[in-house]
């Protein structure tokens, strides 16, 4: 019996999420390669890619690991905590930079600053969360396996 964790979907939803991610990438590749339609944002065919992509990301985020316990839950909370801090800092940096650039007439640099703002986009954040969580789990597994039990 596992120790208490937050509400999460069963692990099979995570597997479905990874397959969905792969499928959306495949659809995107087909759309690009066939040249029948050049995908553009906010047009009907791109929904074939974006909707499965977003649902897959969500499924990966809200489903539990094969063996999920309070330690993995604590790890999740810690990553979300750092992401929130990062978003606040990015937003703060963005607003300050925009004010400074517009005040001093450096409008040309606004494009670069806007790119930084993309980092606080929810989809980018979910992706960062998934990548960070996977990397940390892999790192701990590697560290644990390199440890010789006494």
């Amino acid at each position, binding site marked *: 019996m596992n*120790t*208490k964790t937050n509400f999460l979907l069963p692990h099979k939803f995570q597997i479905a999420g990874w397959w969905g991610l792969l499928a959306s990438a495949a659809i995107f590749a087909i759309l690009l390669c066939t040249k029948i339609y050049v995908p553009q944002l906010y047009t009907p065919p791109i929904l074939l890619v974006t909707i499965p992509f977003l649902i897959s990301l969500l499924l990966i985020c809200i489903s539990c690991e094969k063996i999920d316990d309070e330690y993995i839950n604590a790890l999740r909370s810690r990553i979300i905590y750092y992401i929130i801090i990062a978003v606040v800092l990015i937003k703060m940096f963005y607003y300050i930079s925009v004010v400074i650039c517009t005040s001093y007439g450096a409008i040309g640099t606004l494009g670069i600053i806007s790119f930084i703002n993309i980092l606080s986009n929810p989809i980018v954040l979910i992706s960062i969360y998934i990548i960070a969580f996977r990397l940390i789990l892999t790192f701990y597994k590697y560290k644990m396996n390199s440890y010789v039990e006494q």
Partner: protein
Amino acid sequence: MLNNNIRVERAIKRVSQQDVADAIGVTRQTIFSIENNKYVPSTELALRLSAYFGKTVNELFRIVDSKE
């Protein structure tokens, strides 16, 4: 800082981290992190560990003054 005797108790009982993890229903990572003082377990997990090793929670865990 919370210190623990889990590694010692495990050695006495001659069980691996995986055995403890399986018996308690957590991952091996959790046991590894607790042993290395990287993670402080919840009361529930501490009680499960104490039941598994047949020791009281106070015998397994102790608060160590950081100045020590």
